[in-house]
């Protein structure tokens, strides 16, 4: 007899919903509401439909495998009933090849630990691709759960000349079928009405096993029934899933049969029928062909848009050039296009600061609000336009289908460093933020490929680095231009390129050392070209921008306030008092030159004696060889909360030193910073370049470390990553600064 945990997560005597441990995905109080699982192939428009039904913000994209996290939402039905919807990841089959697809299998078999067995399955198929996607439909119908079938994107199917006899298909499958267009919302109301009624269980079990398979399935199912609580057809479904789960982790989680037992059954099956693995598919597709013969008619089947566009986009010479051009335009547009908005926001915040300083009495509170909070948030806020633009471009590439072509073009090049073409999407997303990027690696089936991609994703210049780059470029790189190309834009492009190169070299090294092994197979769908779903795109960008603002509004305000305190206290060191006395005397004497000099000295003294100064000074010996002083040291420490905090730290540090009323912008403040001891410039352009190189490589994001721990299931990888990246950053900055100095630059 097995331990009590055997199948305890999947006790299923009947197929009725049961009380389950609710995960965070299903907040308390929702357990009595029916659960509808949205299931379908990648790229079937599943998530668009889910968004239509729930109105919840969620990522939708025309690229296989974007929905890597399980989206949850609620839908109010016409009768007033509220149902919970869960948007399961896209799957080609219930025999998973990736962690993504495992979730789908586990939920539909009722053995998932976080999501209960759904009450209704909303099975979404791309109507224009029925000949392939109906296979998954048959696998799902075979489970016998109440099911509603949705033929999505019927508009495209009609355009392609496909005529579908819905009633004939309904009759054969025994479940209600609805036609929808997720992009426009056509058919959604009818679907809502249908959800209000009790969905029927499918009348057929379309995928009967062959005799050889049935023998082993029954034998294994008998053992499972002996031990667990699954019986009859349920036990057989689990047995078959276990037999198909070669190299998977199902048996270890389920404890219903030992690996040895399963292997023995599999070996017997192998002996009886060496082709047993393709029997289900062969039977399934034979059934699909019969179904389609009865219920559809194809008038024409060419997609002229795809043919014409692909001829250019994947052309031997034009294709790669076009790709380089698209990337170049995107980065130039992000840099130049955001400028007017940035200026506006900057002016707005400084106006607000001026308003506050006019109304509030002088004192610590005013100083905290203006120099700490508003200066910090305002600076970060001004980078929002760039971040929104970046999200817009990534979304556009995904939605139109160009992203898959880019992966198609790049697979060979990525293969040089041992990464699959599929790693392109996680890496591209990492330009926005490494966290969604790392989560998107769940679509990479091979563990070695996946780990290598996770490891190098943070080298992609994320949007949090963008404010830092923009600040330093603005401060140190002269704004020279040649037509549409400008030197600052070029430097930004070079920084992004630098991150990519380091990522690839690192991946190459990983695949030859700790992650040695053959390249895993990579089959990737090339979806048809589609016009972007603007509505979804706008909600996605809004959501991501709000997320950034929320971060700016909470973490960064808190860090700004703490920093203001660290940089302002303890106040009144003896040296500062002496300087303040001299300043007052000089002001009375009206000696303007002395006043300016003394003001800088007072500020320098205050900072030097503050807590922040002490921390920065403690770090100085370590970072001096990189060209950084203790003030940058403070920024390096605070940027561990989030990289963009570096900017607000600098704002706080420099606003404090700029005690006069003249408004000196942060860029100028940094450029004109004087070393209080020598009187010379604190930073030279080489410092700026060294610092940008440091930011390009260093792992300074606690959230990334946390996500890597979650995704890799241990501390080994995040710690290895943290150490490798920061050592690399130090060495590279050292090389840049010392090498540059040796060559007489700066």
């Amino acid at each position, binding site marked *: 007899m097995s331990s009590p945990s055997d199948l305890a997560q999947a006790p299923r005597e009947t197929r009725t919903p049961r009380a389950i441990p609710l995960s965070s995905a299903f907040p308390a109080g929702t357990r009595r509401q029916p659960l509808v699982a949205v299931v379908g192939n990648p790229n079937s428009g599943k998530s668009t439909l889910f968004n239509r039904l729930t109105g919840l913000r969620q990522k939708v994209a025309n690229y296989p495998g974007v929905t890597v996290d399980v989206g949850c939402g609620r839908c109010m039905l016409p009768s007033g009933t509220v149902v919970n919807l869960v948007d399961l990841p896209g799957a080609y089959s219930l025999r998973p090849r990736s962690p993504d697809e495992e979730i789908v299998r586990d939920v539909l078999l009722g053995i998932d630990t976080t999501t209960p067995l759904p009450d209704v399955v909303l099975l979404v198929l791309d109507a224009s691709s029925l000949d392939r996607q109906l296979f998954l439909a048959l696998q799902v119908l075979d489970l016998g759960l109440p099911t509603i079938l949705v033929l999505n994107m019927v508009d495209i199917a009609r355009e392609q000349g496909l005529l579908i006899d819905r009633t004939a298909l309904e009759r054969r499958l025994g479940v209600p079928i609805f036609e929808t267009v997720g992009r426009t919302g056509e058919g959604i109301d009818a679907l809502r009405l249908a959800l209000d009624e009790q969905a029927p269980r499918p009348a057929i079990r379309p995928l009967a096993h062959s005799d050889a398979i049935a023998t082993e399935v029954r034998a294994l199912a008998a053992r499972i029934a002996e031990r667990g609580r699954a019986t009859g057809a349920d036990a057989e479904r689990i047995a078959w899933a276990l037999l198909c789960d070669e190299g998977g982790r199902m048996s270890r989680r389920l404890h219903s049969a030992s690996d040895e037992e399963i292997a023995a059954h599999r070996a017997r099956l192998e002996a009886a029928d060496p082709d047993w693995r393709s029997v289900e598919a062969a039977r399934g597709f034979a059934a699909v062909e019969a179904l389609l013969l009865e219920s559809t008619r194809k008038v024409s089947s060419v997609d002229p848009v795809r043919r014409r566009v692909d001829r250019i986009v994947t052309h031997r*010479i034009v294709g790669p050039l076009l790709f380089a051009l698209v990337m170049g335009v995107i980065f130039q547009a992000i840099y130049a296009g955001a400028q007017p908005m940035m200026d506006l926001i900057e002016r707005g915040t400084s106006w607000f600061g001026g308003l506050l300083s006019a109304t509030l009495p002088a004192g610590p509170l005013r100083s905290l609000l203006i120099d700490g909070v508003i200066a910090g948030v305002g600076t970060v806020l001004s980078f929002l336009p760039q971040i929104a633009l970046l999200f817009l471009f990534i979304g556009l590439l995904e939605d139109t289908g160009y992203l898959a072509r880019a992966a198609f073009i790049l697979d060979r090049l990525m293969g040089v460093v041992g990464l699959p073409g599929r790693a392109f999407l996680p890496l591209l997303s990492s330009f926005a933020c490494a966290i969604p990027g790392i989560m998107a690696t769940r679509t990479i089936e091979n563990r070695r490929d996946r780990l290598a991609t996770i490891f190098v994703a943070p080298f992609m210049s994320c949007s949090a680095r963008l404010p830092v780059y923009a600040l330093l470029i603005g401060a140190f790189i002269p704004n020279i231009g040649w037509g549409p190309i400008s030197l600052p834009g070029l430097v930004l492009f070079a920084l992004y390129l630098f991150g990519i190169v380091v990522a690839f070299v690192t991946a190459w090294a990983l695949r030859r050392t700790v992650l040695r092994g053959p390249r895993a197979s990579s089959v990737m769908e090339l979806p048809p070209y589609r016009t972007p779903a603007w509505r979804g795109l706008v909600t996605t960008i809004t959501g991501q921008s709000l997320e950034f603002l929320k971060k700016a509004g909470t973490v960064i305000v808190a860090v700004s306030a703490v920093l203001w305190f660290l940089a302002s206290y303890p106040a009144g060191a003896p040296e500062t008092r002496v300087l303040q006395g001299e300043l007052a005397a000089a002001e009375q004497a009206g000696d303007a030159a002395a006043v300016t000099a003394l003001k800088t000295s007072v500020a320098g003294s205050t900072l030097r004696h503050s807590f922040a100064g002490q921390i920065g000074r403690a770090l100085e010996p370590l970072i001096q060889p990189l060209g950084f002083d203790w003030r940058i040291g403070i920024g390096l420490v605070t940027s561990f909360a989030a990289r963009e905090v570096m900017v607000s730290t600098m704002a706080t540090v420099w606003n404090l030193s700029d005690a006069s009323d003249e408004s000196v912008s942060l860029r100028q403040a940094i450029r004109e910073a004087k070393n209080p001891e020598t009187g010379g410039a604190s930073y030279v352009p080489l410092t700026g370049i060294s610092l940008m190189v440091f930011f390009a490589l260093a792992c300074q994001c606690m959230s990334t470390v946390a996500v890597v721990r979650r995704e890799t299931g241990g501390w080994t990888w995040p710690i290895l990553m943290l150490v490798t990246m920061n050592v690399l950053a130090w060495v590279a900055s050292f090389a840049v600064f010392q090498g540059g100095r040796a060559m007489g630059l700066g």
Partner: protein
Amino acid sequence: MTPTAFLTDPHLAGLLPGERALVRRVHGAPDFSRRMSELGLVPGTEVRMVRRAPFGDPIEFVVRGTHFSIRRAEAEGIRVVAI
């Protein structure tokens, strides 16, 4: 089937762009051949080679109306008979 016959069997990667063929058998790692069959590449299915990627690898092919990209090395395991 003799080993030589196996080697000279035409495969998906050997088709010219635009050429059609019928799937005979899928060779390769167990999970790979299973997935190919689940994508509809079962014996007797028509496949059409579309193009090679700009750098020669992977290749694009169509099966049951859906376009897929697959590496040459894997496509060599998809044995076909010319139509």
